[in-house]
């Protein structure tokens, strides 16, 4: 832990641990530099990229790309969290460090829409290539009939700019980085999925009369 603060200076203020995880936070631009230090430094020696995942903290907040690293020398997992701007979600790729990050980054791009700059093969991996939306963002709604609707995935419902974001006001202060006590009560935070459904009248494109009259 001392090593971490020595070698990766900016983490000093953000170091956090629990029983088997050490956590540091960095800025998106420095991802490659920090991870290279962590991997190549002889005392740190985090040789394995255990996981790379993206987290969406809601439409009014930011994205986060989370890397989990493993080293034989240290008993704990190292979690590296990089904050990514939601309006312009860009972060440098780490495929030069670990080629195996390729599928992770493609998945994050596919699901969250985070662009990894410099990744040579940033294609969609799960969804079809002509898919427009990013299904794992928090503001991607799951209407009951999404799978049945003729334009599932590209209808305006799933485009954030058409939404009334006040709906998500309750999610605003949700930031696990902030002190735990600062969060509002649990029930207020997570809206019931059914409550997030827009009124049928807001459905504009792609849903025909036949769809509306179909028994639910």
């Amino acid at each position: 832990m001392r090593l971490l603060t020595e070698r990766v200076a900016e983490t000093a203020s953000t170091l956090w641990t629990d029983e088997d995880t050490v956590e540091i936070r960095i800025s998106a631009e420095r991802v490659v530099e920090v991870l290279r230090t962590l991997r190549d430094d002889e005392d740190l020696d985090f040789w394995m990229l255990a996981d790379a995942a993206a987290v969406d903290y809601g439409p009014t907040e930011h994205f986060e790309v989370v890397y989990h690293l493993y080293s034989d020398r240290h008993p704990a997992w190292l979690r590296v969290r990089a904050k990514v701007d939601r309006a312009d979600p860009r972060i440098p790729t780490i495929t030069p460090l670990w080629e195996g990050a390729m599928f992770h980054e493609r998945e994050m791009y596919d699901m969250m829409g985070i662009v990894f700059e410099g990744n040579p093969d940033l294609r969609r991996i799960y969804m079809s290539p002509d898919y427009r939306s990013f299904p794992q963002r928090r503001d991607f709604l799951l209407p009951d009939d999404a799978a049945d609707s003729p334009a599932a995935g590209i209808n305006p419902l799933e485009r954030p700019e058409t939404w009334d974001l006040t709906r998500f006001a309750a999610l605003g202060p949700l930031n696990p980085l902030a002190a735990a006590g600062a969060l509002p009560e649990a029930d207020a935070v997570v809206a019931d999925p059914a409550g997030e459904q827009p009124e049928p009248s807001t459905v504009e494109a792609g849903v025909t009369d036949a769809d509306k009259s179909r028994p639910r």
Partner: protein
Amino acid sequence: MTATEPREGRVRDPIDLDAAEEARLRTAAGMIPAPIASPGGEYFGFDTVSIPDRPPQTERERELYTLGEGEMLVNMGPQHPSTHGVMRLVLKVRSEVVTDLDVVLGYLHRGIEKLSENATYTTVLTYVDPMDYMSAMHNEHAPALAFEKLYGIEAPPRAQYIRALVVELNRVFSHGLMMGFLALDIGALTPILYGFINRDEVVEMLAAISGQRMLFNFFRVGGVNWDVNDEFLSRLGAWHAKELRNVKDNEALLTGNEIFRARTRKMGVISRQQAINLGVTGPNLRASGVPFDVRSAHPYPPYHELEFTPIVQEHGDVYDRYLQRIAEIKQSMHLIEQIMDKMPHGPVQAQVPGIIRPKPGRAYAAIESPRGLYSVYAISDGGPTPYRFRMRDPSFVSLQVMPVLMPGHLIADTMAIMASLDPIMGGVDK
């Protein structure tokens, strides 16, 4: 007569109607234009089949789908006798030699991560079951550990031992089936059926303890669903002796078989450095000589109380990956004996409320699944459902090896190498 002209009295093929548009798109994208009026007769353009009908999105895609002299693309899957589920491999071949390969995923994508954001912590454990359907117990293990860490409880010791027991049983049949699938993809019919006989016995055993044969739904946050019962124990006792004989049968069919060795040795070699770089984990990584096993590298209970050393092989070829599976079956049998010896008495379920609302926070839990490091990263916002639920599936990451390994091998080796990596598409596509 050209390919685009309709035959007399036949309905015009709608694909032909778009040929002009396709050719325009291809030319714009700098790809080989599909001929509209072909000079070479009806068979001209045969080698352009399966090039995507849109401009390439990345450099890599452009390179992959641009054909050189004498090359053609062969689609393996999603419907193919041996693609281990609905997976598609696009092979670029020159005669029978593969020059490049693209892995196309998503045919089984169910969005389990997204579904889990709308499910309570207990129901998430049922959603992850069908992920890696060969090792449903492992799928439940990591989320259960992560949620316990979030909630700040620990399963009682007996529950931990029962967990390890069912998980090792699951590993035995998963590895047994992998041997069978490898043999099947190389052309031997019998080992897979022996593998399934073994699987059936284990699965009946697990059904006796959990109530279900395939998607067990056995783990709970804070313990397991039921204690071991008489039927389970009697089946376990009868099975234990038979299992090693079963493995021996398969070994007799394959390990020393000259054809099998010729097909698998020095084939699809993953070097140490390559394996680490590509994120390969589990038996495939250990077959390359890296002694990384989550059970010993970052032990989760009760593995710190069990005698356990990771097994490694030297060469990292298909044959070594096969041997690694056999060695791990024997190791698991040994672990099961230890677990049965050391199993303490006590409750199997900690006191937890029906709907769990952990404090806001995050937890990371990783376990060793039969395919490698399977980890879960869960974020709680204080509500009854996880705010974010992320699963890292080992076979998803391992599949990246294919484009690196394949160039230079034959089509026939594609399936052998893929079977040796043992990907399960339910897990890959989540």
